[in-house]
């Protein structure tokens, strides 16, 4: 037991470095985890877990970290298996419960998800993540009352928590209880004026309850808070279009068109805005041909460029997986209706707008904007 001199120390170091151990693999896995390198986490932790000399007290952490890496690598079944292994060793691990529950939720195994979230709440009733996650599983199954109970349980623990109040407001909006939702969002806006999401969600609720002018006001407040949020600018532009504020809408669509992911719809909206203003649609005609017209919503763009027919748009909308198809058909109904309006075919437009108003998800702007257009067209 004494400090060694140089030769002995170098010899000792060489020996310790010669044989990889479960412990050294575990440490390499930890470092890979902290460097956000999922493939190396899986590699090192798998070696560590297979090593007979890995200390037992490190196994749960190794399994947890490998599970998290599997999540990043989009291998949820392997992740669930590892979280389950970690929980067998440490049954009250809050993080593993929340993370496994989220994976069950993604797989639509909601009972299993709720069981994990309930266990997490029991483990740490003072933390809000368990309540919010439990509520989210209920919302996914449209169990609004149960979700509201979850948020209320969390608000007993933390009565003025703005995140939970916003989430409860959103659950109320989804349940169609708009006045109560607006009350929650207003509480957060009044007490946390820089909480952008509260402005946006209240705006959406105003839209759904037909108060377009109030919606525009909230979106403009949100833009003041996040002027560089181009997605928000597009959403605000649509609200302004519905409210008849075409000049402001043009300004926002012009900004959002700078984002390649938003460009196609933004130019379509610029075209629709130009129609309403009875002005030239130069932005659209100059820029639309440069877009990727092979992918959605390219067929809609081609329709307005005179390069496709409505049937081509609907045929394209019905490609791909089911959820995406439904949203595309919604978008096709609305934009083809607007195209028909531009050709003075109000009867056909009314039919498609009715389809869109009935079938579009509430979260899509075409849902409320179709109702707005139907109201403009009259009976």
């Amino acid at each position: 037991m004494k400090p060694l001199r140089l030769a002995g120390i170098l010899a000792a170091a060489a020996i310790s470095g010669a044989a990889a151990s479960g412990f050294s693999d575990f440490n390499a896995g930890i470092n890979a985890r902290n460097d956000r390198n999922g493939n190396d986490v899986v590699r090192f932790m798998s070696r560590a877990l297979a090593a007979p000399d890995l200390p037992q007290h490190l196994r749960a952490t190794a399994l947890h970290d490998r599970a998290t890496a599997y999540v990043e690598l989009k291998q949820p079944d392997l992740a669930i298996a590892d979280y389950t292994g970690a929980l067998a060793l440490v049954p009250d691990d809050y993080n593993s419960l929340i993370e496994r529950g989220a994976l069950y939720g993604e797989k639509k195994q909601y009972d299993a998800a709720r069981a994990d979230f309930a266990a997490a709440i029991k483990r740490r009733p003072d933390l809000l993540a368990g309540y919010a996650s439990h509520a989210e599983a209920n919302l996914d199954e449209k169990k609004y009352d149960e979700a509201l109970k979850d948020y209320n349980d969390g608000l007993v623990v933390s009565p003025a928590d703005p995140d939970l109040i916003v989430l409860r407001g959103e659950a109320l909006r989804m349940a169609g209880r708009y006045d109560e939702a607006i009350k929650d969002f207003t509480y957060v806006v009044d007490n946390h004026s820089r909480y952008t999401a509260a402005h946006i969600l209240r705006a959406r609720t105003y839209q759904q309850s037909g108060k377009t002018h109030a919606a525009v006001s909230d979106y403009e407040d949100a833009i003041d808070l996040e002027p560089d949020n181009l997605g928000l600018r597009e959403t605000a532009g649509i609200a302004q279009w519905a409210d008849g504020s075409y000049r402001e809408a043009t300004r926002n669509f012009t900004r959002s068109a700078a984002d390649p992911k938003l460009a196609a719809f933004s130019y379509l909206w610029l075209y629709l805005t130009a129609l309403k203003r009875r002005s030239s649609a130069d932005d659209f005609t100059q820029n639309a041909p440069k877009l990727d017209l092979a992918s959605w919503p390219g067929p809609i763009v081609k329709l307005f460029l005179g390069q496709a027919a409505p049937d081509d748009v609907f045929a394209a909308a019905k490609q791909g997986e089911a959820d995406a198809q439904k949203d595309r058909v919604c978008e096709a109904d609305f934009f083809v209706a607007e195209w028909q309006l531009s050709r003075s075919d109000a009867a056909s437009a009314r039919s498609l707008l009715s389809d869109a108003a009935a079938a579009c998800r509430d979260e899509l702007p075409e849902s409320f904007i179709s109702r707005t257009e139907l109201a403009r067209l009259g009976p």
Partner: protein
Amino acid sequence: MRRSLVLTIALLAGSAHAGDAPPPPATCSLPELASIDFTTMPEGMIALPGAIDGHKGGFLVDTGGLAGVVGWGTAKQLAGPIQRSNVSGVFPGGTQLDFGVFADRFDLGPLSFHRIWFLVAPDRMMDANLIGEIQPHAISDTNFEIDFLKGKFNLFGPSPCPGHDVYWTHDAYAQVPMTLDRAGHISVEAMLDGKPVTATIDTGAQNSFLSLKAAQHVFGIDAKNPGLKATGTASLNGMAGASTYRWPFASLTFEGIEVRSPDIVIYDTGNDTRDAEMVLGIGVLRQLHLYIAYDEKTLYLSAAEAH
């Protein structure tokens, strides 16, 4: 894909101080006060089982942290009132802790401490499996040992044979003089690519890091240097964002220890000073067996798997 942190630790030489040490007494047994099993967190840090006024949970061992910190969720459940602290704490990233609470009793493993002041931190700054953080020396005026291999955190009273405290190995070890600031934070002198730097031993940091301002001042590395690789952004304590970079450092040496190709994150929050110390985080530390002898102002080190 970049290979993850790989450290080659070579014990180059015992310090002159160590090499010249007199032979140890025939029997030298450290007085053990407690031996506590710790858990290893996903990031590699360690947590001890504890309780504040009966509220049980994990406590991060943070040698670079504040004396005692408890999350709001737990603090609200204590009998004592949360009150404005006479001394605020500031975490890296700028998070300021202005409130605190007295715990009538704080249990750490088998040890109990009375009337302990804890600063109160937002829960988002803590792992959900933790209810607090401790800088052990500030809570308990003892020496302690971290055995990452066996998962043991051992507390000891003063050594009866100072300078001969390493009992766990016959393999090589080193003893490094350390300095303590008023908060009990441990610093040792090190050489990074041949330049002297001060390194803080921080068991609460998942990475080792150095500010860009310090890198520029000491090494002439600025943000425009083509060798400096931007690696994105990171959140410090869940609050301030920082741009992060890597620089191919070749060697970090302490007395008796060389870390080859040390993986050191260079960060830039925009508010750093050039005098910032390098922080040695858990990624490096957990490859060592540490014995921190506060009363001797000495850090004893061996390889973690030395026996």
